[in-house]
């Protein structure tokens, strides 16, 4: 397994987060310092290095001093870790032996980093033929039986540690090369590099200023994993007597070898050398894992189970009673996420109704809580999220307080969902037909044959009239528009009464968009199905919806009929959004964008969330929470200046 560790490192998810914050060295160190395991590992490694380097001064004994009167003494006051079969002090030998191992690892690391970084950067940054040649080289080296190469090198340079370590680095460097190449390609594709290039920075400077800092994380991970592998390989070869044999002085590996000769008399001797190797490798591995977690910024653990995140401490439901015609009635819905042990509210006090057969739009910029709100209605909040207050009544049951097993009677057959990325919403490994019949049979007690007929029928309903072509296709064989039609067919399989369409046209071409919108309109009329449309596109909203909820930074800021909103917005945010809409602005005018960006939930201002970006803002806006008020019957706004807005027009 010794060589496996070095080839095992191209795990998924080690690429840089797209558009993520550049992982600066200082930030990495700061975050690492928070993890007790990472700190312990670093401390252990530092101790080992200091003891090995300072062995001549610090060791209680010279490594070769024999004391034949006290052989195999076992640990004690005179010899902390005991003596070997020649009465030599084990601790001292361990310290001197560390020099051999650490020097070998250092040599290997230098070559590994030098080769892997250079080749990876060239391949990723230059591209073209250089990339192809380097990729071929990497494939070839990875396919070599590494152990044969090492044995060959050792027969050419018997017992030579440096040669062995260089060879090890050479046969392992493709893993680093691939990681560096992948990350460089990802960074290179980003806009700001293109911008830097346009502004005349040379390739070398771009690499030094923009690319290298972002590589610190993934490269550190690879280095620590390779160092761990190098410790194991160096020790193994030394154990076999092939590199640094016993005659060249102690090493951790040959100490295990010596211990094995006296294993029946004194098994203890296996412990100090073996334990040191195990701890060193573990420390390097832990450090690598910690760096990966910090730089990738992702939480690897699974989401807390829903049982723990149950509907606890729930505020009483406020707001007006639901109208009798209501299909869905959301009141005071509040959602929080637990991140790094802190609970952050991301959606606050959201209330709205959806009547039977109605199409309601939810509008707002990205990060305003639109999607989270709709996912909560299906009990599908991502890991760490839970409803902390409020209710969502649907058919007499509260979706916000529902147990996981009861959602099986809701999902798909009462409320269905279609998502923004139709392609990534389909399982890439199964044919369309298989996915459709599976859902059909989940919701209807039908035979396999009937399910197939129903699947073809559903495809016809979404205007895919050639089921013979679509059913046997895999998702990657579909176009974006076809994939969205398939996912609408999947949503219809259980005859839902409410369809949640989360940005259903955002990722599609304009021509395809119109078709999907027409289909949704048609299905709504034919099936009497209500729709919640999440969008940031006013055109899409106007096309499909009767009423709209405008959300900003986790709150409902305005609710009115689409017509009223267009004609006279009663919240400055709505007004800004409308003004920034290219479809509504007079041709030739510069689009007035709203200055600033949506604040993240952890940085919501006190009072009105929009006031820092608002041109109407006064001191009162930040004084306290702003309540929803009704400027006209049938509409709501969360602004104390809504009258002023009207007067200003």
């Amino acid at each position, binding site marked *: 397994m010794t060589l496996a560790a070095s080839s095992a490192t191209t795990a998924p998810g080690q690429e840089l987060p797209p558009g993520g914050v550049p992982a600066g060295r200082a930030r990495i160190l700061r975050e690492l310092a928070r993890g007790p395991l990472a700190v312990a590992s670093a401390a252990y490694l530092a101790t080992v290095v200091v003891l090995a380097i300072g062995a001549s001064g610090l060791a209680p004994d010279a490594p070769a001093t024999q004391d034949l009167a006290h052989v195999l003494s076992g640990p004690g006051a005179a010899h902390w870790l005991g003596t070997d079969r020649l009465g030599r002090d084990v601790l001292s030998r361990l310290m001197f032996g560390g020099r051999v191992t650490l020097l070998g690892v250092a040599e290997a690391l230098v070559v590994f980093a030098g080769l892997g970084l250079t080749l990876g950067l060239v391949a990723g940054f230059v591209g073209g033929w250089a990339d192809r040649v380097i990729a071929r080289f990497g494939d070839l080296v990875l396919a070599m039986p590494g152990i044969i190469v090492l044995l060959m090198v050792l027969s050419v340079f018997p017992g030579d540690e440096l040669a062995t370590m260089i060879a090890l680095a050479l046969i392992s460097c493709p893993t680093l090369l691939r990681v560096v190449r992948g990350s460089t390609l990802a960074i290179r594709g980003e806009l700001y590099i293109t911008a830097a290039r346009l502004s005349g920075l040379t390739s070398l400077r771009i690499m030094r200023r923009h690319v290298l800092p972002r590589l610190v994380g993934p490269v550190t991970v690879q280095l620590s994993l390779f160092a761990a592998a190098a410790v194991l390989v160096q020790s193994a070869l030394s154990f076999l007597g092939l590199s640094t044999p016993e005659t060249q002085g102690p090493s951790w590996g040959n100490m295990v070898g010596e211990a094995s000769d006296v294993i029946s008399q004194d098994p203890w001797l296996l412990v100090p050398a073996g334990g040191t190797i195990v701890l060193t490798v573990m420390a390097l591995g832990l450090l690598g894992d910690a760096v990966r977690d910090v730089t990738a910024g992702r939480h690897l653990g699974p989401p807390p189970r829903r049982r723990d995140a149950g509907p606890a401490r729930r505020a009483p439901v406020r707001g007006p009673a639901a109208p009798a015609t209501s299909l869905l009635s959301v009141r005071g819905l509040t959602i929080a996420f637990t991140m790094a042990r802190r609970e952050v509210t991301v959606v606050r006090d959201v209330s709205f109704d959806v009547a039977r057969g109605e199409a309601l739009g939810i509008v707002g910029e990205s990060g305003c809580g639109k999607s989270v709100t709709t996912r909560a209605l299906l009990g599908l909040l991502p890991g760490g999220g839970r409803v902390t207050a409020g209710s969502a009544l649907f058919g007499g049951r509260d979706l916000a307080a529902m147990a996981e097993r009861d959602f099986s009677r809701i999902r798909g057959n009462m409320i269905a969902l279609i998502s923004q990325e139709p392609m990534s919403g389909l*399982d890439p490994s199964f044919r369309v037909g298989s996915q459709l019949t599976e859902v059909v049979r989940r919701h209807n007690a039908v035979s396999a044959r009937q399910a197939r007929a129903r699947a073809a029928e559903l495809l016809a309903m979404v205007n895919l009239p050639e089921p013979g072509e679509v059913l046997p296709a895999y998702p990657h064989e579909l176009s974006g528009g076809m994939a969205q039609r398939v996912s609408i067919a999947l949503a219809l399989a259980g005859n839902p009464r409410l369809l949640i369409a989360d940005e259903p046209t955002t990722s599609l071409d304009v021509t395809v968009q119109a078709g999907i919108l027409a289909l949704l309109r048609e299905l709504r009329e034919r099936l009497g199905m209500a729709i919640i449309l999440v969008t940031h596109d006013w055109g899409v909203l106007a096309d499909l919806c009767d009423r709209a909820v405008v959300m900003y930074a986790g709150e409902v800021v305005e609710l009115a009929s689409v017509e009223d909103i267009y004609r006279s917005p009663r919240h400055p945010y709505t007004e800004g959004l409308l003004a920034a809409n290219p479809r509504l602005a007079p041709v030739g005018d510069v689009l007035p964008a709203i200055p600033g960006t949506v604040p993240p939930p952890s940085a919501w201002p006190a009072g009105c969330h929009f006031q820092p970006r608002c041109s109407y803002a006064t001191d009162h806006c930040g004084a306290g929470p702003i309540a929803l008020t009704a400027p006209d019957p049938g509409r709501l706004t969360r602004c104390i200046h809504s009258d002023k807005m009207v007067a200003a027009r």
Partner: protein
Amino acid sequence: MFRQVARWLASSVILLFLITALTFVLASMAPGDAAKAILSSQSGSYTAQQYQQTRRALGIDQPLPVQYWHWLDGVLHGSLGTDLFSSQPVTQELNARLGPSLSIILATVIVSGVVGVSLGIVSALRGGALGRLVDVVSLAGLALPNFWLALVLVELLAVKVQVFPATGYVPLGAGPGPWLRSIALPVLTLSAGAVAFVAKQTRDSVSEVMSREFVVMLRARGLSRRSVVLKHALRNAAIPVVTVVGLLLVSLLGGTVLIEDVFSIPGLGQQAVTAAGSHDLPVIEGVAFYFTVIVVLANLLVDLSYRLLNPRVRGS
């Protein structure tokens, strides 16, 4: 399909050619040669004339490219030359040693595949204490040097409690029971790291798939968590895991070298160490050839299962 097979064949042949050529060059650079080794093992002192004679007899007095050409010519006729010391055909010697090595490697792949994949899935889905336990066990498994673990296991399971034989190999022909007992300790030793390796990759892969959009969408369509995990998530998570098991197979070739030494098992790895020490070029070449063929076949197997599992690759 035909093109793919042709491409695979071509790249395999190139790889075999490059590896054996590289081995040839490296082996010839080694100080000393087989003639010296043979003569000193026979008598200890020898004359320059004897030395030259032996070199001629062995054919190692010719220039390196000529030697390699002869070797290649032999390969095309199904011969890998003869062992310089025992004068046995290399293929015959290595075939006899293939059984022990493959027994250990395949048994380890099966054990670590079954145990590692199960542990990985459970820890990815359950998290909590079990997930942390798998993390710790994985880390320890990867950190244990297998030569050291082998010694500890021998001490515990062959000396203290005599459950398994400490050394030696019994062929399968002698009965499955004795065969299993003879490879138990080597397989157990190699499995510690292998299980950890597979479990970690499986855990990462399953976690990654479970966070994908289509998993949420499958749940939104009303499918039970059970069916989403067992049918959809596992199928998708298997794609990278298959690659990892292929890598494992290749890396176990290296592992057997150590393990066969510790457990005195007459396999390819042991042969490689001996031959490298005695400059027995035909045997070294033979081992390199066998190892490379195993690597090539493992890669083919991975490629085929990858195609089977991943429709996006299958189509193209």
